[in-house]
């Protein structure tokens, strides 16, 4: 663990710069994370990176917590904390400033056009992310039946979503998907 100090510096530089570059969401800089963590710094091999990615997608919380895992592998708990803060803070400050502008511009025509006009685009993007998620999770026909049943349940009834996802997890745990 003699490299830990150097690794911490690399973690800090890597994630604080990727933070502001992650335009369009954390997933857009994952190829660059892979390149650095696997090829440049040899913190892990490609299979491990892919597995950590899968864990971060499925585990509760924002999938950007992938960086927590990378930081942990690179430099222990300190690395995990540093990676998480470095990834969130620079972009977070920018977003905070934009959110202030947004709340101050309640009467501007641009804000009202965004509020009334963007909804169809957002719904399209949400559908696209559901589609991409199903591709990433390698959905086969059994998983699609499960997804279809859960979608009907969630859209037409007032079932608590926790029960739906929990039930689906149980079905998976039993080995049926």
């Amino acid at each position, binding site marked *: 663990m003699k490299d830990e100090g150097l690794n911490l510096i690399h973690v800090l530089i890597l994630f604080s710069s990727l933070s502001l570059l992650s335009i369009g*969401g954390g997933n857009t800089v994952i190829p660059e994370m892979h390149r650095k963590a696997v090829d440049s710094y040899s913190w892990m091999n490609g299979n491990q990176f892919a597995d950590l990615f899968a864990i971060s997608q499925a585990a*509760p919380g924002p999938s950007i*917590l992938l960086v927590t895992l990378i930081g942990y592998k690179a430099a222990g708990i300190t690395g995990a904390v540093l990676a998480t803060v470095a990834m969130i803070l620079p972009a977070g400050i*920018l977003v905070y400033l934009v959110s202030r502008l947004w709340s101050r511009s309640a009467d501007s025509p641009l804000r009202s056009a965004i509020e009334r006009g963007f*909804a169809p685009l957002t*719904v399209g993007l949400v559908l696209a992310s559901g589609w991409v998620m199903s591709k990433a999770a390698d959905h086969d026909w059994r998983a699609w039946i499960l997804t279809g049943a859960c979608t009907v349940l969630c859209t037409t009834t007032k079932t608590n979503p926790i029960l739906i996802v929990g039930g689906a997890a149980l079905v998976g745990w039993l080995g049926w998907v």
Partner: protein
Amino acid sequence: MSEAAAVKPSLLELALTFNHISLASFGGGLSAWSREVVVVEKKWMSEEEFLSILTMCRILPGANQVNVAIFVGAKFLGLPGAFAAVFGLTFLPAVLILLLGAAYFQYSHVPALQNALKGAAAGAIALTLSMVFKTGRKCLLGVIPWILFAATFFLNGILRWPLFGVLALTAPFALLRAWPKNKSK
């Protein structure tokens, strides 16, 4: 709009609420969870405000859901609110994912867990699709919204265009259509 409809939450309530949203989202589907809690349950934002913020949060750098937490937290309680919401969103999940990661590096794989996560992912995709139905029912009224919706999905989901390319094409039409007619500035 329904700007002041909701009671202002405390810092603790912001943190707890985003913690709740975050922990509920195993398998993914965080956007659907945020909407469920922020719009439907807590009524902190109108559907329009939430959906427009969601797309802005995608455009801005940073993780989308962290950005949503910042917007919601800052709307009510400024900088401390943003901190509380992001802390709630990330702290416990970060601890959890570290435990999962440590277990992974110890045993290299956990088959039953992987199966359960696969099932959870199928459920989370269902939540996401159902969000599409629920919000689409309200905002896809008319031919042009449908075209904008379908084009955005097709370019981003099927052709995998980057977000910027997609919005550069669709956003101008969306804004033009929704621009307020009476110029009041």
